[in-house]
C-alpha cells in the first residue's frame, strides 16, 4: 500500500513539476494521471494488485474528498442569493442538454462498431 501511495504521489509530483516548468494550462494531478496511464500501458501487463486496491480505496470514497471544498460554498451565499437563476438554469438545462447531445452523437458515431 505504501508502494502504491508512493507511485500515486510521485506521478502527482512529476505532474506538478512539469506543469510549472513547461507552463502547461493543465492541473498537475491530471498530468500525473496521464503519466500513470502511459506507464501502465508501457508496462503491458496488469497493474500491481496493491495499486488496484489503493486506487479503489481512494476512488470508492471519492465523495468524501470533495466535502472540505464543498463546504466552502458557505463563503458564496451572497453570490448564490444574487445569481441563483443563471446558476440553477445553467446547471439543470446545461447538464441535461449535454447528456442528450453527447448520447445522440456517440450513438451515431459508434453505430455498427
Amino acid at each position, binding site marked *: 500500500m505504501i508502494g502504491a501511495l508512493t507511485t*500515486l504521489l510521485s506521478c502527482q509530483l512529476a505532474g506538478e513539476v512539469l506543469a510549472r516548468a513547461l507552463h502547461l*494550462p493543465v*492541473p498537475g*494531478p491530471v498530468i500525473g494521471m496521464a503519466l500513470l496511464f502511459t506507464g501502465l500501458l508501457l508496462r503491458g501487463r496488469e497493474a500491481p494488485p496493491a495499486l488496484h486496491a489503493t486506487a*479503489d480505496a481512494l476512488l470508492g470514497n471519492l465523495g468524501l474528498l470533495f466535502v472540505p471544498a464543498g463546504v466552502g460554498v458557505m463563503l458564496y451565499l451572497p453570490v448564490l442569493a444574487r445569481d441563483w437563476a443563471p446558476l440553477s438554469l445553467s446547471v439543470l438545462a446545461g447538464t441535461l442538454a*449535454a*447528456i*442528450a447531445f453527447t*448520447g445522440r452523437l456517440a450513438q451515431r458515431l459508434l453505430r455498427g462498431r
Partner: protein
Amino acid sequence: MSELGEIWVYLAREPLAALAATLLAWLGALRLQRLCRRHPLANPVLFAVLILAAGLLLSGIDYRSYFEGAQFVHFLLGPATVALAVPLHRQWEAVRRSALLAALSVVTGGLFAAAVGVAIALALGAAPEVVASLAPRSVTTPVAMGIAERIGGLPSLTAALVIASGITGAALGPLVLNLARVEDMRARGLAMGTASHGIGTARALSVSAAAGAFSGLAMGLNALASALLLPLLWHALAG
C-alpha cells in the same frame, strides 16, 4: 484561564476537530443516503456539505479555520485524480476498439456542456467570476477546481456546481436519454460520464457494466480534454 477555555484553544489550533467533524458528517451522510434507499437525489456529498456548513454557521466558526484541519482530506484529491488512471487502464481492453470515436464524442460533448452552461449564464446576466465558475462544471471536481482557478472562477463555487451537475445528471440523465432514444449502452455511458463525471458514472455502473466502463472512460477523457482545451479557448475568446 478556565479548563474549558484551554480545551477550546487546543481544539481550534489542532486539525483533529475539523478532521473528525468531516468524517463524522460523511458517515452521517452515508446513513442518510441509506435511509432514503439510495435515491439518486439523496447524494451523500450534498448531505455532508449541508451538515458541516450548518454546523459552522451556527457555531460561528469561520470556513478558513475549518479548512486548516480539513485540508488533509482535501489533499487526497490529488492522488485520487492520479488514481483515475487505474480504472481507465483496467477498462482499456474493452474500450480500445471504439476509443477514438468515443473520445471524439466526449471532447465534443464536453465542450458543448461548457458552452451551453456559459451561454445560459451570460444570457441571464451572471457576474463574470460566476460564468467562469460554471464553465468547467461537468468535469470531475479536482480538475474542475484547477480549471476554474486558471480562468478566473471561484474554485469552491465550482466544486458546489460540479456536485450539483453530477446529481442532476445522475437523477434525470437516464430519463433524458430515453426521451432522446439513445439505446446503445456505450453511448449512454459516454453521455453520463461526460456531463456528470463520477456521480453519473456511479449511476451508469448500477445499470450496466458496459455503460459504467464507458462512463468512467468519458469522465477521465473529459477531465483531460477540458483541462487542456478550456483554459486555452477561454483566454482566446475572452482575451
